């Protein structure tokens, strides 16, 4: 079921196009990766979802109905640029922020206490933010984002500023929130975390959405029919067999075991390639190289250039 939908969003600032006819659909309880180079329009889209900015045209739907201004209380937003009241006590400001999202004071305190206990930071309640390190502040900020139990969570670069231990803790919590029913839109430049977390991605470049689909399918789609063959035997024999039809990209010899990367001109023709080399060399391992999100990102953006 679609939880969130942005339809044909266009936004122009003076002469600068921020978003051109961008549509995205986010399934309930999924993690949606919003990718794109700097300045592509991601932040504008996120601000439109948060009703900080209004689109010039296009509509936004939540659970199948048009989004109302009161729906902001269903959203939890962690902006890329973090910040809290430096002089205010942590507990007090967390309660205040939760109240602004529509929780009663009583409910806010109850929800926050749970999170503070979970993150083992109960003794920070009466401290001021300025007494905490950057990383500790990030934890508090994360809690203030999720405390009102939002149905839609928007994280902009959530892992920046976290050490690996806390980043892992955070990842676990994000997955946990999804499993408990939250739908998550996740914007980041960290492609490893996209591969790890996102069910679905959309890539925006120069205000236009250029890629959209389930993460696995997109990686599959962007593969270059590369195969890595690990074998024992004469490289010369292999070369003379393959040279005619395949492109040999890379060859490594380690003692008696060799590894070669071959590009197949045809799609989904791994078996054919395997069949051809079995008679010539002793195959130890054979795998197709599926591109990482990093490669997909670079390739998609580069391919997009001529058209613009």
């Amino acid at each position, binding site marked *: 079921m679609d939880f969130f939908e942005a339809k044909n969003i266009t936004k122009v*600032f*003076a002469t*600068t196009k921020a978003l051109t006819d961008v549509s995205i659909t986010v399934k309930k309880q999924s993690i949606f990766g919003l990718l794109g180079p700097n300045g592509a329009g991601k932040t504008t889209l996120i*601000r439109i979802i*948060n*009703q*900080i*900015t*209004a689109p*010039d045209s296009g509509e936004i739907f939540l659970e199948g109905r048009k989004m109302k*201004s009161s729906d*902001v*209380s269903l*959203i939890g*937003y962690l*902006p890329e*640029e*973090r*910040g*809290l*009241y*430096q002089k*205010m006590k942590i507990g007090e400001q967390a309660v*205040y*922020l939760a*109240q*602004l*999202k529509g929780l*009663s004071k009583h409910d806010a305190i109850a929800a926050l206490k749970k999170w503070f206990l979970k993150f083992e930071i109960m003794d920070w309640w009466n401290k001021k933010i300025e007494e905490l390190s950057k990383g500790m502040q990030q934890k508090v900020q994360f809690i*203030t*984002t999720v405390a009102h139990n939002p149905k839609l969570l928007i994280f902009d670069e959530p892992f920046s500023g976290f050490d690996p231990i806390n980043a892992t803790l955070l990842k676990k919590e994000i997955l946990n929130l999804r499993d408990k029913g939250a739908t998550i839109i996740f914007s980041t430049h960290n492609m490893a975390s996209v591969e790890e977390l996102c069910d679905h991605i959309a890539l925006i470049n120069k205000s236009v959405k250029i890629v959209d689909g389930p993460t696995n399918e997109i990686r599959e789609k962007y593969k270059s029919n590369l195969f890595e063959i690990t074998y024992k035997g004469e490289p010369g024999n292999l070369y003379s067999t393959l040279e005619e039809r395949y492109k040999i990209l890379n060859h490594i010899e380690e003692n008696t075991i060799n590894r070669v990367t071959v590009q197949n001109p045809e799609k989904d023709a791994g078996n054919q390639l395997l069949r051809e080399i079995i008679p010539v060399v002793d195959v130890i391992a054979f795998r197709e190289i599926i591109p990482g999100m990093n490669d997909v990102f670079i390739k998609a953006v580069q391919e997009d250039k001529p058209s613009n």
Partner: protein
Amino acid sequence: MNKTLLILKQEYLKRVTRKSFIILTLLVPLLFAGMFALMIWLTVKTDKQERLIAVYDASTLFTGALDDKDGFTKFHFMPLSEFEKAKSNLKESEFYALLYIPDNIYSTGNAQLISEKQIPIELTEQIEMKLSNLIESDKRKIIISETGIPDLEDRLASTRTPVKLHTLKVTETGETTKSSSEIAFIASYSMGFLIYFFVFMYGSMVMRSVMEEKKSRIVEVIISSVKPIQLMAGKIIGTALVGLTQVAIWVVIGSVAMVLVPGLLISENATGMGQSIMENQQYLNNQTSQLADQAILTETLEMIGNLNIGLIIFSFIFYFLAGYLLYSSLLGAVGAAVDNDEDSQQLVFPITLPLILSIMLLFPIARNPEGPVAFWGSIIPFTSPVAMLARIPYEIPVWELLLSMFLLLITTAGAIWIAAKIYKTGLLLYGKKITLKELIKWIRYNNLQKNPYYLYKF
């Protein structure tokens, strides 16, 4: 709870519970009371340091006559030889100073006071007074005995008639009330200054609060929960309530003081202070009694009471709120537009210039509340909060007051409209140098949506 209300409450409580607020609120009345007390003390105080003065009286006219029973200055008369000895050894001697009275003092009126230190003026005046009084009364006695009129002394004294102009004001019903131009002047000046202080302090407070939210970047989270206008309204109203709370506390403390202080002062007068006044007056041979002093005090309080306190408080609250709204909305907009202190200072100056100008108008206004400076200053909206308040104690024509209020309200509404535009545009804008020119450009966007920095539509 309504979100504007929530922000308002948050801003209000944050400020009212701050130590600096509590200290300032309690300190200002104390300061006023202290100043008042100091003034009273200064007028009645006597020098209470005990000093011993060696006297050689060549004229032999004053021997034993200089001491008075409660005086703190003691006079020790001695022969010339002893006097010379003391003079050569003044530093080690017990004497504070040496008084040399020549035998021709009657005709010349000259004497010498010799000391190691700089002698306080009060002491020299005191001794001069004693000597001249004694000479005067002595000469007078001679004349009286010559004329043979026994009660001449009293009759002469009765010819002294100090004149004091009591200004009275006639009300519409024909009653006269006591007024005082001095009191109106002081009231005018302090009212003008107080409103300047309030508008400036609380207006800047709004700006700093907006800037703090922008600089700490929390503003993006906040406006993803509430509309920027709600945030701005909550902040401005919350801060205004802090100001009103402060005024209310001061009014309460002031009224309590008005009731308690006169009684306190009068009872004080009857004892300690009265005595010292008596002492002072004694030398003047002027029998101004403590009763007269009490009368002055009650009269002063009565005249303060005759100021139109109701109108003053009403105008104060109106001009504070309107002036504060005018300036705080503009300053709040500046706070939203800039992201560093230098830019803000450059913008704050042109905005607060009229306010600073109005404080310079205060003196001419308080001196002549009916002149053109006073009139125009109190009609032009940017200076009227301060200028009009300075005129209120003099009671001005109703139409002027209404016109001034009307123009101020219209201008304030316009300022809020402009401020809202800037506020919604600048709140999430970082890293751009904001100049007055840039702000004017923002204001002039008819369709705000087309402003590249514009944020909000709702």
